[in-house]
């Protein structure tokens, strides 16, 4: 085929090409200017003639020296590849109404097989994949949960050979933006054939549900729901919320046809934990696509505000910092009573001049005891008030599930008169019958018990990687209650480390019936706040310690021995999930290492759908990939077999509706825009599309290139020579050199 002017190229044979030519030109111009000065004495006409001749001679000489070359390619046209991209997503076959899209696609692929045009077929759904040939289109399942057409086109463009064309066969419902500009820059034409009707059927859909990351029992939270109604459905829809363990709630709402509506749903959980929930639209005969009428999700509900009773036998700095910490915690409801005066103290006034009230022993420990989740006895002895009558009650309260921490001081433990009392039965340490006095130990430090370095109540700064160093770095304490031996079944977490008193238990915890108890043998933990912060400039160590202790005592979910989660918890169908767990023993939190675990995958009704086997590692960790069924809904993963403490622990995983069944409508206009922008052609139905060959690409190939160098011919040199002689002769004639 003939080359065009655009195909021809031009250069110079002179070494240095254009630079050399420019320098030569400058030289000749200088010579010419010199020439102009020399002819001044001649009459104008001959002078002009000689100047012109000299200019022509110099120009000819310059051309002969630079030797221009003309390169003319000889071309031929070759056929280019046609890459055909078939949409394999679920929107192509969403049930009887939409299955025609898939059928049409398969039919045309089959018809194209008879054409001779060579094609490179691909399918895209969750990712782009090449097909062995057009016959492989028969095997497409149309189940991909989304239509990432944009990323598929980009990937195809990167691997397309030169001269290729792309043909997209799709409904156009792309999950990501189409890279029109990138494709235009790559000069890669994209043709498109749209499938499916442009309009969407009557449909009601829940498009999205948003919930707070964490809710709290008895506190109202707001859930956000977005709905859409299309087609003649009427404007009233009935929306229902179901959450496990709670009564169903329904509301009737008005949603304008063709519009979306967002609403807030106020809801108050009554139970803590992970709750599977679901929003659902009431069925309607006009709803042609009910699969998008449900949206399952999981709510994480924290326990109600912790109700704490703090009683103290005397004001102290430790009490002051503890009370301030408890009051600042938004998740704590605090009731505190301190004994500010003992009966033997001499105030010098009548009761009317005091702001004191009688210690409400009976009210607190008879009437209201059960209302509290946690009791803190801070340097609170038996004797300030007639408390003996209530010791049994407190013991039984703890055994039924309440929590108690006794904080040291001169009025605590044996010094407080608790030896041989009902309270001594539940404390985690033995109490001597009578201790004469606390031991004052100057500047003792705290160290973790040997086996407790990784316990969450000890390892308060895991980023340091050394719990012992953390505790060594805290300010020393000065007072320590000498406790008896830790009881069987209790766990010693912290000990003293000092010259006078080393290895004595400082923090001991235990289970007492259904409740939890802790003994803290000092009322100087406040020094970990003020003094430590002053020394190191760092950190709320006091607050961190008490926060952890309270969470353990109150069984906060974040400190449960076994932690189980699914990643991701909420995803559309087909997405791979992972079950991650860390399993530990109760109380001492030692890992349940190398344990065989059975994982039951169950539906909401508790039916087991699948059984998986796994084994924990040395840290008690589990990481198990798995797949969920495609049906939308919530599924439980329940653990069995590792240890009685984790038996039936579970996490939830939710399959939410995919984008394909939320949007339904195709987007042929986007395909049309894509084709127009890239120089391709668009057809709104396969019936209107031409044969494949008409989409076929072609490309030109250079067979060979011819070089033309007109001034290299000997005649050119001869012509130059003759012209030079002519010019010289005329100069001599007019007396010029």
């Amino acid at each position, binding site marked *: 085929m003939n080359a065009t002017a655009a195909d021809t190229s031009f250069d110079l044979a002179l070494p240095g090409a254009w630079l050399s030519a420019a320098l030569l030109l400058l030289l000749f111009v200088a010579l010419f200017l010199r020439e102009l000065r020399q002819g001044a004495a001649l009459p104008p006409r001959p002078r002009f003639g000689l100047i012109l001749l000299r200019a022509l001679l110099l120009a000819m000489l310059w051309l002969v020296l630079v030797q221009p070359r003309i390169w003319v390619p000889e071309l031929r046209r070759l056929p280019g590849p046609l890459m055909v991209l078939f949409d394999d997503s679920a929107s192509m076959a969403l049930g009887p109404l939409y299955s025609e899209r898939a059928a049409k696609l398969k039919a045309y692929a089959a018809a194209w097989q008879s054409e001779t045009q060579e094609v490179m077929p691909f399918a895209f759904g969750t990712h782009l994949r090449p097909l062995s040939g057009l016959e492989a289109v028969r095997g497409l399942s149309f189940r991909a949960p989304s239509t990432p057409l944009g990323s598929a086109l980009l990937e195809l463009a990167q691997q397309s050979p030169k001269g290729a064309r792309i043909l997209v066969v799709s409904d156009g419902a792309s999950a990501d933006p189409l890279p029109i500009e990138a494709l235009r820059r790559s000069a890669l034409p994209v043709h498109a054939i749209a499938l499916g009707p442009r309009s969407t059927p009557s449909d009601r859909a829940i498009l999205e549900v948003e919930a707070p990351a964490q809710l709290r029992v008895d506190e109202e939270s707001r859930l956000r729901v977005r709905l859409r109604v299309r087609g003649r459905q009427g404007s009233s829809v009935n929306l229902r919320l179901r959450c496990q363990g709670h009564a169903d709630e329904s509301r009737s709402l008005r949603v304008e046809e063709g519009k979306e509506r967002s609403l807030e749903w106020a809801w108050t959980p009554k139970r803590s934990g992970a709750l599977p929930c679901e929003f659902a639209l009431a069925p309607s005969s006009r709803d042609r696509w009910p699969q998008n009428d449900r949206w399952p999700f999981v709510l994480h509900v924290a326990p109600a505000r912790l109700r704490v009773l703090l009683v103290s036998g005397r004001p102290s700095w430790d009490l002051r*910092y503890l009370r*301030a910490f408890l009051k600042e915690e938004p998740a704590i409801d605090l009731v505190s009573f301190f004994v500010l005066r003992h009966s033997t103290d001499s105030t010098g006034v009548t009761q009317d001049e005091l702001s004191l009230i009688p210690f409400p022993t009976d009210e607190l420990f008879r009437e209201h005891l059960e209302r509290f989740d946690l009791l803190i006895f801070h340097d609170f002895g038996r004797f300030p008030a007639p408390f003996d009558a209530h010791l049994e009650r407190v013991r039984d309260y703890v055994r039924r599930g309440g929590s108690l921490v006794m904080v040291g001081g001169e009025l605590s433990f044996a010094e407080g008169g608790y030896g041989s009392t009902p309270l001594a039965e539940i404390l985690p340490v033995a109490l001597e019958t009578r201790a004469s006095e606390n031991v004052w130990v100057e500047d003792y430090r705290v160290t973790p018990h040997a086996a407790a370095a990784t316990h969450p109540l000890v390892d308060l700064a895991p980023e340091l990687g050394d719990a012992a160093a953390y505790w060594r770095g805290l300010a020393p304490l000065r007072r320590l209650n000498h406790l008896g031996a830790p009881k069987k079944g209790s766990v010693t977490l912290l000990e003293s480390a000092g010259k006078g008193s080393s290895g004595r238990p400082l923090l001991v915890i235990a289970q007492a019936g259904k409740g939890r108890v802790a003994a803290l043998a000092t009322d100087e933990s406040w020094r970990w706040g003020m*003094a430590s912060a002053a*020394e190191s400039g760092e950190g709320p160590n006091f607050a961190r310690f008490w926060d952890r202790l309270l969470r353990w005592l109150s069984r906060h979910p974040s400190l449960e021995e076994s932690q189980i989660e699914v990643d991701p918890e909420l995803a559309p169908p087909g997405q791979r999930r992972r079950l991650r767990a860390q399993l530990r023993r109760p109380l001492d939190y030692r890992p349940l290492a190398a344990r065989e675990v059975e994982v039951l995958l169950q539906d909401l009704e508790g039916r087991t759908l699948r059984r998986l086997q796994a084994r924990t590692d040395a840290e008690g960790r589990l990481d198990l990939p798995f797949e969920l069924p495609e049906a939308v809904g919530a599924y439980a993963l329940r653990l069995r077999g590792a240890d009685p403490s984790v038996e039936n622990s579970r996490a939830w995983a939710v399959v939410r509706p995919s984008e394909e069944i939320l949007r339904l409508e195709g987007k042929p206009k986007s395909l049309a825009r894509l084709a127009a922008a890239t120089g391709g052609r668009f057809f709104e139905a396969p019936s209107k599309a031409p044969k494949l060959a008409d989409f076929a690409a072609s490309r030109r190939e250079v067979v060979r290139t011819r070089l033309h160098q007109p001034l290299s011919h000997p005649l050119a040199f001869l012509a130059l020579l003759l012209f030079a002689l002519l010019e010289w002769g005329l100069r001599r004639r007019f007396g010029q050199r």
Partner: protein
Amino acid sequence: MRDGFVQVMADNSRRVVRAAAWRASLPAQGSARGKALRGGLSAWFASLLLCIPLARAQEMERGDVEIRGVALAEGESESYPGLRARIAWELRKRTSIAAAKEAPRLRFDDRRIFDGPLLYWNGRHAFASLSESERRGLRRFIALGGFLWIDAPSGAEGFDRSLRRELRRAFPSHPLQTLDRKHTIFHSFYLLEHAQGRDASPKTLEAIQVEGRAAIVYSRNDVGAALARDAAGQPLLPMVEGGERGRELAARLAVNLVMYALCLDYKDDQVHLPFILKRLRGASRKYGP
């Protein structure tokens, strides 16, 4: 300690009863041996009674609430030595607070100020600017929860000027403000109508509030001086106003201030409020004009 005190009392009571019973069984009066025995028993009996205050005195040696003083220079002497011990004594006598008898005096740039959240500064004269390290130490002390009670006579204008200058420098965005009569300090233990020291005026206290608490309280009534005692245990200084009743009110204010430092707004907790309001209404009728 409270429990120990009760136990000592119980033990001594038993000894006293046994001693009295034995004494009753002794030979009749007249015999020299009987007289000697009775005399010895009486002395013994008296000593037992002494155990009670002695035991209590021993308790007072220890305690975790130290009334630590403020020194502006090394070796600087206190205006009233023993004053802080007297405040501790009043606390021990009147409340359940375990106040220590002895406590050091510290500069603001001494690291030991973080060993306890209470500092008492009795000032009388103008003073030079605090160094930057002292100012830093004071700010840090307050930021970490410390409480500073500044006490001076109403006529100490030099100290007042110096103090206000330094507080402005150390806490430029927290000015001294007059405390309302309803502030917790006035009902943290005793129900008080106003501030009282050797001077009955001003009747108010000033404070620097930090994060909702009065972190620095300035009393210009010379409260501490009203409590100071000489070696014989007699009041060191006469009251300018109020007489002995005023001295008693000064002691009450000192107790309230330390109780506030320990309990902050505990008394304002809702559950206590009805009881306190009822008492305050009663108190007003009693002490009204």
